[in-house]
């Protein structure tokens, strides 16, 4: 039952994703990409559990490595997106 429920979530999120992203204008495609890339760093959540679970040495090692990579993805992704978006300006008062 758990599986069905997760698949349910998957299908609905994909549809939601399509609806959300379709409306993003071309001018924002690069920030969209780097911003959504940062979101894909959500794997970090899984990495944290693996790194801290104290199961085997291998798991801790793999988990820690995953934490490093995912954190680069998350922190770098959000920061660089913010840096880009800060530069987008509207034309001021028809100069």
């Amino acid at each position, binding site marked *: 039952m758990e599986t069905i429920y997760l698949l349910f979530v998957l299908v609905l999120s994909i549809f939601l994703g399509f609806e959300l*992203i379709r409306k993003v204008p071309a001018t924002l495609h690069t920030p969209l*990409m780097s911003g959504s890339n940062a979101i*894909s760093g959500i794997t970090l959540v899984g990495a*944290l*559990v693996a790194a801290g*679970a104290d199961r085997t040495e291998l798991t801790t090692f793999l*988990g820690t490595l995953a934490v490093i990579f995912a954190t680069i993805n998350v922190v770098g992704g959000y920061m660089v997106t913010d840096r880009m978006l800060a530069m987008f300006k509207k034309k001021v008062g028809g100069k």
Partner: protein
Amino acid sequence: MQTTTLLINLSYIVAAVLFIYGLKLLGHPLTARRGNQLSAIGMLIAVVVTLLDQSILSYGWIIVGILVGSGIGAYAARKVEMTGMPEMVALFNGFGGIASLLVGWAALSDGHLSSFILITICLSILIGGVTFTGSLVAWGKLSERIDGKPIKFSGQRAVNSGLIAAIVLCGILFVNYPDAGFWLYLLILLAVALGVLAVIPIGGADMPVVISLLNSYSGLAACAAGFAINNNILIVAGSLVGASGIILTNIMCKAMNRSLSHVLFSGFSTVKSAAMVIEGEVKPMTAADAFYVLEAASTVAIIPGYGMAVAQAQHSVKELQELLEDNGTEVIYGIHPVAGRMPGHMNVLLAEADVPYDLLLEMDDINPRMETVDVAIVIGANDVVNPAAREMEGSPIYGMPVINVDLARTVFVLKRSMASGFAGIDNPLFFKENTRMIFGDGKETINQLVREFGDN
């Protein structure tokens, strides 16, 4: 459900809402920054509550990992040049991919795994591995650490098909014998090999498609990892990213009038007719003469391409725009969806140079206006303004939607020399009656025009 588990799951719902609302706000330039911040807050919430998870017993390595990762990420995000954005995004994508691979691998030690979980572990290793090495190759090509030309060898298709068959077989064996480490290692090896082989035959001009696709994969990898560790938020966030990447891929393919499979498997190598002879004479012009034309123009359209990024000419272009505007000329920009090396690449560069985003018109908005444009300045673009796409059946890019600069009264093409563009296709635009070629470094030419305005 225990109180902490309940708390964690409720917080995941909050995080999911913030991701979704953040993406929604990302749909408009005015709200996009706030959207990104909301999504970052969502991520922070998801990470912090996960630390409450009871299966986490020691925090030492977590802290080390987070500190190292944040340090590297923050440093890279601050240092990167806007022109280097495509390779940066490719690299981050790859890191997301490898993280999913590692999470899938680590999930194996959980004991009691159903075949469904094993299949999802298999998928997260596979997609994560392909994303990782595929993105590294894309990064290498974009940053010119490896040759941007398609790398092909005979029997490439057979090798790739064989590899995919081997992966399927290996995956089945892995799911049936999860304790034999051999199949796991072989699977990882095959996945990373597939990533490399899938991206090397793709040329630099097709990179927007590849990056979008890899972006989608990094989401799907996270999604698969979510199934592997039975975690909702990974599935929600991963599939949002997966969907976003697929949409961008689709937009890029349409803008090149090519199907995804064509981009992935054939490249531009199949030039149908070599008999295409373009007749005519190239008419060069000096920057000094170009200035007089520009001075008299009432509407100027600037069409940038990847060459503008290479020459770092965006700031000079902005300067020229200001001088033209002071002279009473209307300046607009025409942005082709695949100009540059990633979707929206030109928009970011011009935003960096303080060009207001409302002057940047998409292809479908600028084309109807083109006949009223006095001067169209093409800087560093080639294929995306190639009229052969419209008028020469048999040209490899025939049918691709392009910006119709040749319909403007005068076209200036800023070009280093007479070589054909990335796709290796001759451009009849250069031989048109109303086209003037201004040879030289793009940035230098624009600077000369700026100086002419200063002197007069």
